[in-house]
């Protein structure tokens, strides 16, 4: 089971990847703020789109991967934007919101896939984020994939023991998996704590 595909490309070596994480984060947020705050203009959106496409090409991330990420997230954008259709002048408003939101999403996807999370954590730490949240974020990122795979193993184990399930049984067994997942996570937290203490953590 390889769930690491979600974070593979943030460790490439391209001109974009080499830019400091803080610079990239601030620039991305600046782009998104500009898109959100400035009055809608199609020329501006086109310019932003071309600029982002150039950045994406320079980042050497496979175009198919970026496209897949965007397509995965686009339903939420379109779903929420379609609510804007129910008002006077709804269609142009829908088009504006969907375009603007897609451009913001594209910016964020490029940032996420060119910046390793550990570097982002350094940025957050320098931005004076409280230590408890930094520790929580770091541990969460470390064990995200571990727990994801653990839950997949439990589901496989369950699937290999049952031929067919009704919806009702699927619900019961899924909730048991979730409960077990938390119990195992709590056990792992105890062991992690012991290991942290053994290494002199305070």
């Amino acid at each position: 089971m390889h769930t690491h595909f979600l974070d593979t490309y943030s460790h490439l070596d391209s001109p974009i990847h080499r830019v400091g994480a803080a610079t990239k984060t601030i620039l991305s947020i600046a782009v998104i703020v500009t898109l959100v705050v400035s009055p809608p203009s199609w020329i501006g959106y086109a310019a932003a789109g071309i600029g982002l496409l150039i950045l994406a090409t320079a980042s050497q991330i496979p175009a198919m991967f970026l496209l897949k990420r965007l397509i995965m997230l686009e339903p939420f954008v379109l779903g929420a934007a379609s609510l804007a259709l129910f008002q006077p002048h709804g269609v142009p408003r829908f088009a504006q919101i969907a375009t603007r939101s897609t451009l913001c999403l594209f910016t964020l996807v490029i940032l996420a896939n060119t910046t390793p999370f550990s570097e982002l954590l350094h940025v957050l730490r320098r931005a004076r984020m409280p230590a408890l949240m930094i520790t929580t974020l770091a541990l969460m990122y470390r064990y995200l994939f571990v727990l994801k795979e653990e839950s997949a193993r439990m589901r496989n184990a369950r699937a290999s023991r049952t031929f067919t399930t009704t919806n009702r049984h699927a619900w019961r067994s899924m909730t048991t998996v979730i409960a077990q997942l938390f119990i195992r996570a709590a056990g792992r937290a105890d062991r992690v704590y012991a290991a942290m203490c053994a290494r002199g953590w305070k």
Partner: protein
Amino acid sequence: MHIPDGFLNGRTAAAAGALSLAGLAVALRRTRNLPPKRVPLMGLAAAFVFAAQMLNFPIGGGTSGHLIGGVLCAVLLGPSAAALVISCVLIVQCFVFADGGVLALGANIFNMALVSSVGGYLIFRSVYRLLPGSRGRLVAVAIASWLSTVLAAVVCAGQLALSHTVPWPVAVTAMAGVHAFIGVGEAVITVLVIHAIEQVRPDLIDPSAPSPMERRGFELIGFGLVIAIGLAVFVSPFASSAPDGLDHVAQSLGFRDHEAAARVIASPLPDYRLPGISSAAIGTALAGAAGTLMVFGVGWTLARVLRSRQTDLNVDLAASVNGAGPTGRDSADA
């Protein structure tokens, strides 16, 4: 319910950001004396919420839903730790998976970490106090899960409407309507998960939580204040009969100009028309009450089924431990 970037205008995003910072400050203050042993648990719990959100439940018709986990987390870890944990989940979802916007992060944290999780916990505590006992706890969990999901959806609709993205009637109908169903699923899953954990490791369910008989409500007042201000800013402008809710809130917050602000301060209730208020508010209240009653029914049935099955199980276990059948138990009692 993750709001992407581009749906909120700067003003709404800033207001939501300020409110969630205030909420997180309260949470951090209340976790100052967190035992060091529970620090790794917060990281693991955040990873757990993330992994649990990826498990899909069949709903029927080929669709599936997943757990959101706000109330689950709050009941397991306590409200302050849960607010921090859910915020961390949202931060990772935003920066690693681009799920939910950066500018909208404040709004997302307010809706899901504060309204859904901490607000859900406040509802849980109030209902649990009315219905103590383990069955009452499951009913309280069900009601809190459903109500907090719907409440967060309504707040989200208010933010979208306040940004002029979506008109309020459309936003609130769509968001509250969809989440009234999602909330039922959330309530059932949360009850089943809490029940399963309760059976195996009862010690894991927030050991620091006061029992329902204790009255320690005041310590949560900071959270209550932040959530109440959020509701006032994002939802209340639309609950009134004012023709443009945004203008009203802009005036009363002094965003517009000093003259308008001064006028509002001088007489805060000039257009406060009671009939309009009462009809809108009564409609909303009735809908909320009906939904809560329905979920109470669902939760009560679930709790009855789960609890009675457990007592059967315990009797069976006792019987098998003490020999065969009730005679064995009698001899053990004697």
